């Protein structure tokens, strides 16, 4: 088992890395499992911003 990194990478900072690679990352990004990711982002929305569908 790996030890956890001592730095908290930050959720927002992790997500930027999916999007910030530029054109070089387009091919990679195209292959991403977007549906799962998008559902993740919807689920992870702040509780202060209630989902209008709920």
């Amino acid at each position, binding site marked *: 088992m790996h030890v956890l990194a001592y*730095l908290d990478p930050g959720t927002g*900072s992790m997500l930027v890395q999916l999007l910030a*690679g530029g054109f070089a990352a387009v091919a990679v990004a195209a292959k991403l*499992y977007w549906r*799962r990711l998008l559902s993740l982002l919807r689920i992870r*929305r702040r509780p202060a911003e209630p989902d209008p569908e709920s």
Partner: protein
Amino acid sequence: MEPRGHDLAADSSIEAGSFRDHDSRVFVTSDGVHRVLSRAALEDWDALAASALWHELQAEGRVVATQPAQLDALPDLLAAEAAGALHHERVPFISYPYEWPFAMLKDAALLQLELNLRALQAGLALKDASPYNIQWRGSAPIFIDVGSFERLRPTEPWAGYRQFCMLFLYPLMLQAYKDLPFHAVLRGSLDGIPPHDARAVLSGERFRRGVLANVLLHARLEARYGDAEGREVKREMQRAGFSKQLLEANFKKLLKVVRELEWKAGATAWTGYGKDNSYDEAAAGRKAQFVREAAARRRSRLSWDVGCNDGAYARIAAESADLVVAFDADHATVDALYRSLREEGRSDILTLVMSVTDPSPDLGWRGLERASLERRGTPELALCLAVVHHVCITGNVPVRELLDWLNSLDAALVIEFPDRSDPMVERLLGGKRDGSNPDYERATFERALEERFTVDRSEPVSETRTLYEARPRA
């Protein structure tokens, strides 16, 4: 109960700035600089030491020279059990990013990204991204945190990305895009500038390279999803297909952003000073000769050039010193000096942005994490040329108090005193009431100097300026 471990404040052998990574800790013994490693860190070290990359980086001098250390006993400095130790080359003088000119912070950022990219290709990674992990051999950056290397987890995003933005990218963007010096911000916050704060300053620069993704999007995603459970997001990103290729694309993109950041420093009052000052060539020649003779009386391990300007005298002092720390309060001047020394490949002059009247203090955890200027080592020789009038008239430091401070360094001294009739002194006094700074007189200065130092020699270099060579009283 037996006290466990060592108290930071009581045990000066522990490097106080190295506490954050609980798998690795730096300490100093009479044999030099050591690093104690946990079991996990030792395994990461073994992976690094076995790689071709490690041998390349050691040969290139990009990473501090390091060997496994054979110690009789491992100190109890880690939360976990200590499993091994390393021995490091000693860096001659520690400096911090809030003291570096723009071009130094930029070169440090490029080294960090280059290491990230090369580590990735070697199946390794760097667990953080802090400019405090980079030190200098004169004008060459050197990475000192060997404990930062770990085995790559190819499906994990870069844990150091946020830190890279806060401590490297945003400070550089502030300087390059807004002409806003980063030193006060980095000195004020050792963790750097959070995305939210960077956005507040840089939102008008959205069309500049790197701002949209690394500042605006970053701040927005952090505000929106910052409280999501990190471990779960990481797991979902792995499932979504986050990969080594994406890491590589991000490093390359950041490299491109940083490479293109340029700070166009305007001409300040000081940038042309060495060439265009108020005394003639003959005076400059006499001054150079005086400094050369005084510096050559000893081989110094460390010399300071206080108020170094274009570095002409720091270069002379370097003829008889292992290292000259050359500092000046004017950022543009220090930036230009660093770039010219880098061009020449000089390893014996370290350039820092620092004001004598506001030098770097002790900062961070227990005031021990980052050391004040003097706590990092005092010089054997200090040059104070064309600087007394700025400190005592502009800075209003009493003449005696400036000499008290210089005396406290316990160093040989070369100091220049321009009279009240000197054109530069007249200019500095020009905005003040008549009779201001009454202690700024040659007779007062000489008396105060002789009370504190043995003055070996003095020589007029022009009609209005005198040089003194002095030693602390035994």
